[in-house]
C-alpha cells in the first residue's frame, strides 16, 4: 500500500525552476535555467567546471544569499511556493538540506554534530535527541561503525565516515530534499561506493539533487540528468536518454569525453 502510494507520488513535482538568471556582479552565471525536480528521484547535474551547476544547486536552498553582489531573477517554487517570496530562509533550509563537496564536520563530538541541527531548532529533551542521533546515523549507514565512538571528536574519524556524518547531520533536521554538491569528490573509491549505495537508499524517503563531475557516478545513481554548459541547461532528461541517446551534439561530446 505504502509502496504503491510512493510510486504514485514519485511523478509529483518537488521543485520547479523557471527562467532562472543569476549574476555575480556583471557576470551572468546562470542563463534562463528551467528545471523540474521530481519527488523521490535522484537528479544529477553534470557539466564541465565553471558551468554553473554548483551555483545552481546553491540557489535551491538560498546559500547564494551569503555572497555579496548576487542578483537573481526568475522563479523557483518548492511544493508550489516561491522560495524567495513565500519562504523564510531558515524554514527553507530545514526543508532543503545540503551536503558539501568537502566533509565539514564541526569541531565537536560525533553526537553533537548530529544533534546540532535539532538543538538549533529547539529540541532539548535528551531522550529525543538520542533517538534522533541514532535514527540519523542509521539513515546515513554510519551507526554500526560509530556507535561506540559517539562522544569522540568528529574530526578524528575517516573522511568517508565524516561525509556520511555530514549526511546524518542533514537527515537529523528531517528535510524533504537533500542537495549534494559533489559529495564524493574528496573521497577514496571505497568511501565513494558506500555513499552511492547510501544515496540509493535515501531516495526512498528524500528527493535528491546531486552535482557530480563523475559521469559514471551520474550514470549509476541518478534517475534524471541535466547537462549544464556555460550557465545554461543544454539538455535534460532521463539518465538513460542523456547517456545513451543524447539529442544535443554538445551533450554527446561531453558524455563521450571529448571535452570537459
Amino acid at each position, binding site marked *: 500500500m505504502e509502496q504503491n502510494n510512493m510510486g504514485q507520488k514519485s511523478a509529483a513535482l518537488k521543485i520547479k525552476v523557471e527562467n532562472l538568471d543569476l549574476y555575480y556582479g556583471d557576470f551572468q552565471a546562470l542563463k534562463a535555467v528551467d528545471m523540474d525536480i521530481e519527488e523521490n528521484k535522484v537528479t544529477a547535474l553534470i557539466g564541465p567546471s565553471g558551468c554553473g551547476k554548483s551555483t545552481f544547486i546553491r540557489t535551491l536552498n538560498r546559500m547564494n544569499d551569503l555572497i555579496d553582489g548576487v542578483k537573481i531573477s526568475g522563479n523557483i517554487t518548492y511544493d508550489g511556493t516561491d522560495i524567495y517570496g513565500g519562504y523564510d530562509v531558515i524554514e527553507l533550509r530545514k526543508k532543503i538540506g545540503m551536503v558539501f563537496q568537502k566533509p*565539514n564536520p*564541526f569541531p565537536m563530538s560525533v553526537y553533537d554534530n548530529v544533534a546540532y541541527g535539532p538543538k538549533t531548532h529547539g529540541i532539548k529533551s535528551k531522550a529525543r535527541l538520542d533517538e534522533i542521533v541514532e535514527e540519523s546515523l542509521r539513515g546515513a549507514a554510519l551507526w554500526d561503525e560509530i556507535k561506540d565512538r559517539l562522544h569522540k*571528536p*568528529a574530526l578524528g574519524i575517516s573522511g568517508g565516515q565524516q561525509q556520511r556524518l555530514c549526511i546524518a*547531520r542533514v537527515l537529523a533536521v528531517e528535510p524533504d530534499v537533500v542537495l549534494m554538491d559533489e559529495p564524493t569528490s574528496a573521497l577514496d573509491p571505497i568511501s565513494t561506493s558506500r555513499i552511492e549505495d547510501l544515496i540509493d537508499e535515501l531516495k526512498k524517503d528524500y528527493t535528491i539533487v546531486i552535482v557530480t563531475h563523475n559521469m559514471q557516478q551520474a550514470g549509476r545513481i541518478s534517475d534524471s540528468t541535466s547537462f549544464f554548459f556555460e550557465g545554461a541547461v543544454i539538455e535534460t532528461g532521463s539518465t538513460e536518454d542523456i547517456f545513451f541517446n543524447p539529442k544535443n551534439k554538445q551533450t554527446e561530446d561531453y558524455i563521450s569525453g571529448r571535452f570537459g
Partner: protein
Amino acid sequence: MIISAHTKKTKRQEKIAKGFILAFVILTIVILAWIVIYVLFRGFYYHNEVNYDVSNIKEQRIVLNKALDPVIFIVHPKVRLDDLTMQDLRTIYTKQRKENWGHYTRQDLKVETFALDEGNVFTDTVIDFIQGPDEAINKFTTYVADPESMIEMVASTRGSIGFVPASASDKLGKRVRTVSLRRISAVVHPSVKAIVQNVQMQEITPDELKAIFKGEIRNWRQIGGIDLPIKPILPPDHSPYSVINELFLPEEAPGDAVQRTETIEDFFEIMKNSPGAIGICFYNDAAEEGEGLLIEDIRRIESGMNLTIHFLIEAPARSGAWGGISTIIINTFFLILFTLVFSTPIGVLGAIYLVEYAKQGMMVNILRLGSETLAGIPSIVFGLFGSIFFVNILGLGIGFISATLTVTMMVLPTIIRTTEEALKSVPVSLREGSLALGATRLQTIARVVIPAASPGILTGVILAVGRTVGETAVLIYTLGSNYELVRGPSSSARVLSLHLYNMFAEAISFDRTFATGAVLIFIVLLVNYSTTKMIGKMNRMAGK
C-alpha cells in the same frame, strides 16, 4: 663520484651559510638563557659581602664572668634570627622606642624585650653587659621573676627576646629559639689605618685574621695595608677570654708571633703602645676601654635563600624592605582579572562585529587601522592618556579602577586583532554547514565559529595577560604605589612590576628586587604553560 666545480661551490656556500645561521641561533639561545637564569638565580639566592665591627664567630653560651653561669639569649620561634651582633643586642634593649625585627630578619614584627628581675649577681651582670656604661634598658622591657617564667613568656609572646642562665638550657625545648651572639672584635693600633701613598688598610676577612695569628701573614702590606709589620696580641687566657685564646692561639710555637697578656688592662695598654698591633677582644671591652684604638671592620659573607615561602606569604612593610610580597601578588592577580573582565568581552565582541557583521569598507578599514596603530603605541602614552582622562577628567583618581581601565584600553587592540585573525581562520565550510542546517547567523557564530576559533581567541587573551603582568609605565601614572592590599575601586595599589620598579628606583634592596623579578618570570611561565596545555586540550577535544 661526479661533482662539478659549480656544485662544489654551491655546497661550500651552503655550509658557510648554515654555519652562520647556527652561530647566531646559539648566540641568541645563550643570551636568552643567560638573562632568565641570571634573574632566577639572583632571585633565589643572595650573596652579599657585609662589613661588621664584630667577627662572625658565634657564641651560644656567653661567658661573662668566670664565677657565673653563662647566659643564653632566646627568641620566639617565629623570629627568624640565628645570630645577633653585640651592638644590635644593645640597640634592641636600650632604644627609646620599640625596635622592629625588620632591621635584622626582614620580618615586620615589633620586638618585645624581656629581662629577669634584678637583684642577683647573674641578672645584674647580664644587664650591665647588655646596656653598657652609657645606656639603660628601655622602659618597654618586661621583667619576669625566674628562668621558667622567662621561657614561658618568650614562648608565648610574638617577637619576644629574653635571656636565661645556661643552667636552664635543658628546659628550653623547642618552644623557643636560641640566638647566638657575635661579640668578638679585632682592634688595631691607629697606625695600621694610616694612609701612606694612597694606601690604607680596608676591612679584613676572617681567614686573614686567622692567618695573622698563625703567623702566616706578618706585614699589613700582604693584605692591602701599608708596609708595617703586624704585631698580633691576645687577651689573657682565662675566663671570660679563654674562648678567644681557644680560637686564635696557635697550637704550635706561639712564642715569637703572638704576644700574650696577663690582664685585660695589660692587653689594652700594650695594644696602645704597639704600632702595627692587632688584638682580639670582646666588642664591649673594646668600646669601653679601648680608647685610642680602632675597631677593624671584618668582612662577612651573607648568603642564603632569597625567595622563601615567607617572602611569598608575608605582607610588605617599609616600602618593601621588610616582609614579603603577598599583597602585591594578590593585587597583580586582581589587576589581571579585572582587566580581562573588561577587555575580553569588548574585544571579542568587537572582533566578531568587524569580521562577521560589519560591511567591509571604509569604516572597517579605519577601525582596523586604528586598532593596529593602538597596538603599537608605547604604553607610557596610554599611561599619559589614563592619567589625564580617567584620573583627572573623569575624576576617578589614581587607583585600581583608573589603572584597570587604562590597561584595558591598552590590551584591547591586541585582543581584537588576534580574535579577528582567529575568526577569519575558521573555514567558510563550517559556517555554510551550519547555515545549511537552518541555523541563524547568530547561532552559527555562537555554536560553531567561536568554539572553533577559541584557541586563537585564548591566545589573544593570554597575550593580554602577558602585557598586563609586565606593564609598568601605564601603572606608574594610574595605579600609584601603595603596597597594601587593594581595598576598593579607588584604592591605590602596587603590582609586581611596579614593586620591582619602585624597589629598584628607591634602592630598597637589590636582593628583593631580583626575587620579585623571579616571581614575575614564574607567573609568566605559569600562564604560558597552562595556556599551552589548555589550547592542546581544546585541539584534542576538537580532534585536531
